């Protein structure tokens, strides 16, 4: 609620089939959850973009578009900071350093731009990937929300 001390914790978990049609569902849902922090349009669009990138990675690379796979997102708000995790139990990433290189893609035949990790790194304050081949990938990202209210005060 408004007028809190800024230390309240709030969270949500979202689980869905690794289908491309769920990418927009995921980013809209996360944006709706975060809107309680009163983010600016830019902040909201950054968060939607990183969720879209992470979920798309899980669908295409984690599960090779096999929709039996499950993607799990958690969003946690502590004070004015949002922590997002996007996890899959898919193939995992063979070479993480290579995957993080701008413009590198393991699937050029699908016309991927290779910018997913670069975008996540740029749009968030903190960004971490852990991945193990054969057991999945987890992405953890953090961003402080300036909030429109703070701008006016």
């Amino acid at each position, binding site marked *: 609620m408004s007028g809190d001390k800024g230390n309240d914790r709030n969270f949500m978990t979202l689980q869905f089939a690794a289908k491309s049609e769920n990418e*927009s569902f995921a*980013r809209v849902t996360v944006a709706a959850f975060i809107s309680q922090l009163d983010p600016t349009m*830019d902040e909201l669009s950054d968060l939607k973009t990183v969720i879209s*990138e992470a979920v*798309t990675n899980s669908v295409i690379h984690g599960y090779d578009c096999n929709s039996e796979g499950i993607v799990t997102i958690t969003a946690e708000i502590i004070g004015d900071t949002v922590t997002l995790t996007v996890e899959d139990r898919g193939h995992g990433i063979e070479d993480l350093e290579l995957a993080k290189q701008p413009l590198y893609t393991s699937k050029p035949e699908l016309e*991927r731009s290779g910018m997913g990790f670069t*975008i996540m790194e740029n749009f968030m304050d903190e960004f971490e990937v852990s991945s193990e081949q054969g057991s999945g990938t987890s992405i953890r990202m953090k961003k402080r929300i300036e909030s429109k209210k703070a701008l006016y005060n």
Partner: protein
Amino acid sequence: MNLQVEMEQHRKTLIIRLSGELDHHTADMVRMRLDEAIQRGQVEHLILSLKGLQFMDSSGLGVILGRYKLIKSKGGKMVVCEVNPTVYRLLDMSGLFKIMQIYDNEGHALSGLEVVS
């Protein structure tokens, strides 16, 4: 599908207006429709008009870069116009403006292309 494609041909230039959300899910349809139009018609140049584009991610970048390569291999040019600030940031970050001209509107883009063609 929450993405619309509208196309209009001006002589040898194809104007492509995208509105809605360009992500991995909608990318395949956009790619198919554009390639079909490029192969079928007498298309030399492309103008990508993005006024109504509310969302785009790296899948969208892939579609744009793919069409750029296609039209360039045929000796043509591709330009973008009417780019909103959110999409601009993404295009800028990916270095797209190093290879593609950007114009305020379709009119300017058309006259820009006529000068080069």
